[in-house]
């Protein structure tokens, strides 16, 4: 009887861990997308599916999208690796701050970043693939630095030292020991960067000009500009297919590359740089990164105080005044953003956390794993659009429900939570759980006492990401935010659409505030994460 109850609660837990994420994604992801597809394929007229797919123009777009994403991924990793190494191996003052600051570009609204690059890149370079690549690297450096850097900080130094005693030089150690150990983190980060670059929207629209179009931009053009739902639906399916393929490859890689082992605590691994060479390495890597990330941000700040021929704080002062652009004062947009993002983060942590537990405990549930990754690749534009047409009538008219914005933001954040938390949970030594069980902890207690505390740091990192993504989310939110409840990015977008130096400067002023709020929140989460990991 005892055993019966035991297995019953275990079954109930499994049901919750799988059921909640599945239900959430079915209702808020699959259903809206299915609605788009059904409506698109159902509508008559337009090109045939086959015609569209074999159109050389579609092929060109697909090819351009793919190589652009691949090149962006390579460039991002190249830019991020030195800083990841420094963060993964050395302790220095302001380390937490660096981790927080590096995340800021990631959450800035794409429109703002694109404009910043437009302002600082020399003529000739400011439009086209090169500008897009640099902007993608700027955005995604945080993904690589945070995922790889944090993972690196958990790798035992002694493994590399053992290789050194076996005659491996620095290059061989990197190639044969460090990189293989880092592979799971690297492949996870690369997959995310690739997907982001693949579905990037704002950057391409502004920096690509008329000549360069990606799948995502084509979907938007077909759906919103030409109002050809049929073509948009087919292109969406193509995009979903590409994303699914990427996810499958990434998952296979992660599984192949994953090494089960005890991750060391960060405190045992990182140490202060000692020699002059080490100090120069730390300073150089971080300095270069600071320059790369700082210049565009500085341009944003500079523009926020450019209200006319001279510089002034007029744009910031104007934020407290109601404006016809927003229906409310810009300040209220800040409050909206924070509340929405906090709720979205809670939802994402709950759903994504449960999913991560399910993934880490179950063996080989690839379909489930893949489904959790898909929202990454579904374009935000598609999602927002899908929500609008799926939840539009009768009892399911949720379009103006106050929770709809956090839900769509959580959807975008969930894959991050899953990807960040699952590897940590998978890396927990099974004997720790066995030891806890033998000391009298039932399975639920084992999860609370072993898995949860060890995952706490990963959960905190995930929370930081989820919050930041929700704050900066634009493509979907713009469809769903009520006119009198704009979020910061939506407000920025509306200001940019208005003529006049003050309106543009107000947009940049809000971008500056978004930067500050993001930095502050990420810092807070990092601090929290640190305290929880005081056990380490």
């Amino acid at each position, binding site marked *: 009887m*005892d*055993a019966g109850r*035991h297995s019953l609660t275990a079954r109930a837990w499994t049901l919750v861990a799988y059921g909640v994420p599945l239900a959430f994604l079915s209702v808020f992801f699959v259903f809206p997308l299915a609605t788009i597809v059904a409506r698109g394929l159902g509508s008559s007229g337009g090109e045939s599916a086959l015609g569209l797919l074999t159109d050389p123009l579609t092929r060109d777009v697909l090819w351009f999208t793919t190589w652009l994403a691949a090149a962006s991924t390579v460039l991002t990793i190249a830019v991020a690796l030195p800083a990841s190494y420094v963060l993964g191996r050395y302790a220095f003052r302001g380390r937490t701050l660096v981790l927080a600051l590096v995340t800021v570009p990631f959450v800035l609204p794409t429109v703002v970043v694109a404009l910043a690059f437009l302002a600082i890149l020399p003529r000739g370079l400011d439009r086209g693939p090169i500008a897009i690549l640099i902007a993608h690297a700027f955005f995604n450096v945080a993904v690589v630095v945070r995922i790889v850097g944090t993972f690196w900080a958990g790798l035992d130094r002694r493994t590399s030292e053992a290789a050194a005693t076996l005659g491996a030089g620095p290059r061989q150690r990197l190639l044969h020991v460090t990189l293989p150990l880092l592979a799971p983190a690297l492949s996870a980060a690369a997959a995310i960067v690739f997907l982001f670059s693949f579905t990037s929207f704002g950057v391409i629209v502004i920096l690509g000009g008329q000549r360069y179009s990606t799948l995502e931009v084509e979907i938007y053009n077909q759906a919103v500009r030409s109002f050809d739902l049929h073509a948009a639906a087919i292109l969406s399916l193509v995009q979903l297919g590409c994303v699914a393929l990427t996810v499958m490859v990434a998952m296979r890689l992660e599984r192949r590359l994953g090494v089960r082992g*005890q991750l*060391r*605590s960060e*405190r*045992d691994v990182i140490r202060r740089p000692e020699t002059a060479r080490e100090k120069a390495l730390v300073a150089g890597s971080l300095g270069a990164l600071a320059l790369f990330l700082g210049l565009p941000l500085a341009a944003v700040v500079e523009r926020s105080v450019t209200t006319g021929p001279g510089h002034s704080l007029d744009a910031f002062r104007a934020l407290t005044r109601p404006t016809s652009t927003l229906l409310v004062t810009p300040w209220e947009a800040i409050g909206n953003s924070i509340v929405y993002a906090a709720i979205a983060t809670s939802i994402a942590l709950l759903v994504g956390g449960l999913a991560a537990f399910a993934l880490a405990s179950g063996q080989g549930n690839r379909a489930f794993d893949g489904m959790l990754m898909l929202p990454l690749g579904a374009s935000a534009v598609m999602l927002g659009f899908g929500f609008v047409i799926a939840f539009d009538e009768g009892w399911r008219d949720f379009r103006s429900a106050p929770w709809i914005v956090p839900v769509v933001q959580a959807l975008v954040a969930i894959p991050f939570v899953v990807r960040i938390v699952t590897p940590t949970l998978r890396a927990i*030594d099974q*004997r*720790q759980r*066995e*030891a*806890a*069980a*033998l*000391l*009298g*902890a*039932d*399975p639920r*207690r*084992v999860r609370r*006492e*072993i898995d949860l*505390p*060890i995952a706490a740091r990963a959960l905190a990192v995930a929370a930081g990401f989820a919050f930041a993504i929700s704050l900066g989310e634009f493509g979907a939110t713009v469809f769903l935010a009520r006119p009198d409840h704009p979020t910061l990015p939506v407000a920025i977008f509306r200001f940019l659409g208005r003529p006049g130096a003050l309106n543009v400067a107000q947009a940049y002023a809000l971008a500056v505030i978004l930067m500050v709020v993001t930095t502050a929140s990420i810092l807070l989460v990092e601090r929290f994460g640190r305290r929880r*990991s005081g*056990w*380490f």
Partner: protein
Amino acid sequence: MLDIDRVTARFGAKTALDDLSLRVEDGEVVSVLGASGSGKSTLLRVVAGLQRTDAGRVTLDGQDLGPVPPHRRGIGLVFQDHALFHHRDVAANVAFGLRMRGDAPDRIAGRVGDLLELVGLPGFERRSVATLSGGEQQRVALARALAPEPRILLLDEPLGSLDRPLRERLLADLDTLFTEIDLTALYVTHDHAEAFRLGDRIALIRAGRIAQTGTPDELWTHPADEDVALFLGQSVLDGRAYRPEAISVRGAVEGEPADGVVESAVRHGPMVRLVIRLDDGARLAAAVTAIDHPSAGDRVNLAIDPDGVVEVG
């Protein structure tokens, strides 16, 4: 009393435990001695409930453990490489089992202090586990397993990863501890010295079966078969086992016939172990205490005490 009754455990085609039976009486320490791959760790995992069995049953004080999940068994296990909770400090590691059974915080603190005292780590409460040496980690693991007063303590090669002097010291401490707290324990090891030192009885495990059980003296004087005798370091000739200390060795007089030639002479503490090659090519192991012992290459005569020879298989 722990009763392991005809237990079989398979991993795919490999049989780790093959119809194995073993009993541990209350207050008794049984050493399970075997080579690696003999199934001794699997045996512990079966008792702990961490390993599924294919047949047989395990009872503890008459209670069938089959349907009892690991966390309700009240069994302590000290893992080979400690498996300490690295996200907790020393005190929290030791307190874990006490918290699980719902002890009051002040009682827990007291008991943690007592246990750390018992294992020789007083005042280590707030230390981070990662900063401890291997020996200290093993002591914490021991304290952690003992804290909730397990009905039986299982130890899986607990000293395997430690260096020799440390192992000697911990061995002595364990010996004292086992006597002091009247523990019922199953101690798994591949090391003869540990098994003989700690076990009230020794169970020799071979290919998933118990080859022989008995007190250290019983095992030594009456090995059950040829393999056991060889495993213990005795010599077997023509179906008979010869104990090394029952063989006296004398240097042969120059020019006269001798029984054999000394192949090697190696000192182990107070004893010198000789390997002698007889004229027919067979080898005998002998142990002598004399300082003036024969060396390699010496021709020797042997005298064998009949009490030191038993028929095997």
